[in-house]
């Protein structure tokens, strides 16, 4: 072995000298936390499909009522209870305006001498379901987003103060939260709806009155975890103020979990809104949300299933999309926390 080595010609190796600058050079562009998270999220097919689907639903909720030739609340009694009919697709045997009347399958558009097409059909008062469904989606999403945003703001502030200042403040604030979380959500929501005039505002207040406690607990836990770490101590030693530590050092670390939590608040708010509308505590006519549309449709389930089916499908798609996006974001932002 040694002999062989000695036999090697002198010139076969060349010494490389690495300059110190070369060794310190970063060969690939640095990836920020958010770029990394986006990279992980992009690989999650379910989440990306849901994101696109959700974007489409949001666009339609604004575009839908605009492109439909009918107003969401305009009633045309002669056009009541029409099944969906869409030109071109009607040739495939679906959405062709055929419905049951007295047990027989007939083209109700011909029967009622309706010249125009209703893409999603009409309801019992002859209102266009297409514009109503999208308008309702708009209202449902609005309620959910506002409720989630309020939950987030109150929860972050409350949890942040409680966790950051600790001690007696934390003690008192946590006792209050403990009692509030003891009250079942369902009970609170129903009681609050009862004392307020029904409407969008009442639902938002009812959803947020105890909804923020979950967020506040999560934020408190995170703040407690980070505030005792060295980088905060270092910042404090250098003379950083409380607000600088909170905004510059703690917030970026807690932000991921705040986003994840909000993503799960939104579907639960959508569900509660629809649930309240279904048991008759939701919006009042002529306002419509997906929940009230489902409630209206349910009354006609036997004869006009489309009035129930379409808003139910839209609602279910939103819920599925949101849960998948939430799962994907959780995995992307906090791979440790895969539940």
């Amino acid at each position, binding site marked *: 072995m040694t002999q062989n080595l000695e036999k090697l010609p002198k010139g076969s190796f060349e010494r490389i000298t690495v300059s110190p600058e070369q060794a310190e050079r970063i060969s690939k562009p640095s990836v920020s936390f958010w770029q990394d998270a986006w990279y992980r999220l992009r690989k999650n097919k379910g989440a990306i499909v849901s994101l696109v689907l959700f974007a489409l639903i949001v666009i339609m909720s604004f575009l839908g009522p605009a492109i439909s030739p009918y107003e969401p609340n305009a009633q045309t009694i002669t056009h009541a209870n029409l099944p969906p009919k869409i030109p071109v697709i009607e040739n495939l045997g679906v959405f062709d305006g055929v419905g049951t009347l007295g047990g027989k399958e007939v083209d109700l558009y011909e029967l009622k001498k309706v010249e125009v097409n209703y893409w999603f059909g009409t309801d019992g008062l002859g209102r266009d379901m297409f514009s109503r469904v999208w308008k309702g989606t708009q209202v449902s999403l609005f309620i959910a987003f506002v409720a989630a945003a309020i939950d987030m703001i109150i929860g972050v502030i409350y949890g942040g103060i409680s966790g950051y200042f600790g001690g007696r403040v934390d003690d008192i604030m946590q006792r209050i939260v*403990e*009692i509030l979380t*003891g*009250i*079942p*959500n*369902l*009970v609170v929501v*129903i*009681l609050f709806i*009862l*004392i307020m005039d029904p409407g969008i505002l009442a639902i938002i207040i009812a959803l947020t009155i105890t909804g923020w406690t979950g967020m506040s607990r999560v934020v408190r*836990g995170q703040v407690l975890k980070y505030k005792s770490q060295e980088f905060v101590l270092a910042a404090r030693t250098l003379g950083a103020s409380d607000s600088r530590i909170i905004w510059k050092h703690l917030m970026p670390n807690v932000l991921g979990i705040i986003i994840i939590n909000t993503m799960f608040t939104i*579907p639960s708010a959508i*569900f509660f809104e*629809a*649930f309240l509308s*279904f*048991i*008759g*505590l939701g919006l009042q006519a002529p306002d419509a949300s997906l929940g009230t549309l*489902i409630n209206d449709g*349910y009354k006609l*389930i*036997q004869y006009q*299933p489309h009035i*129930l089916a379409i808003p*139910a499908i839209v*609602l*279910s798609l939103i*819920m*599925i999309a*949101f*849960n*998948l996006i939430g*799962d994907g974001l959780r995995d992307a932002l906090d791979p440790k926390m*895969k*539940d």
Partner: protein
Amino acid sequence: MARYIGKRLIYMLITLALIATFTFFLMKILPGSPVASADKLSPEQRAIVEARYGLDKPLPVQYFDYMFGLAQGDLGISINQFKGANVTDVIQSRMGPSAQIGFQGMLLGTFLGILLGMIAALRQNTWVDYSSTLVAIIGISIPSFVFASMLQYFFALKLEWFPVALWKDGFMSSVLPSIALAMFPLATAARFIRTEMIEVLGSDYITLARAKGASGTEIAFKHAFRNALIPLITVLGPMAVGILTGSLVVEQIFAIPGIGEQFVKSIMVNDFSIIMGTTIFFSVFLIVVILIVDILYGIIDPRIRLSGGKS
């Protein structure tokens, strides 16, 4: 442990007192008199009616009467729906069907969910796993009233396998509502068991069991499943909440004479004493379930230090 239970019991009582106080004053500030068609009565008649229900006493006295009655399980008197019937009796008479579909739904859902979650974990990252995850996502996403009306439309109205509604055919009447209620526990259990199983299957003692030559099924059932099952107790609380929330709409859809259906009906006709009584009943039920779950968990899994409660 005893200290922990004591602390939890005190919190429970504070919470309940808070809810009861809140509901009482709510009843007082709600618009309109709880005495039905009060406007048509002459002042004298009105006074007689109010005296009968104790509404003529000063507010603090009414409050203490109410709280005192509550402590003895008296939820007050239904004023406009049942003409003076006791709210406690009304709730009791309707408990049977609710308990039956709730229990069946819970049992069915948890059982199928555990099965689904186990299969998914044992066949991780195959089509079996993906489809069971999909079922779980759908189960969590689709609201119970949408699912219940779908079941009713297809299996009762179209196929006529089950009665459409009402509580007349014994067990057959309870099948569809139970399935509708089972979706939520099913999805929750499946998701939960899957992640727990995967975690347990990756732990050292499973590797050891494998190394000493235990068979696949033995590992799956004897070692992994048992340990994955314990934490499932923690989701029993949320599951009970889900079943209760679901029962309000599911009973409504299938016209089942249960507590949920009565509650929704009372909301529609503004029978406040029933609404408040049921609200308090629901609160007690849920708070007690969650308390039992937390205590059970502490007993079963000694690793959980109870001092701070669950995380």
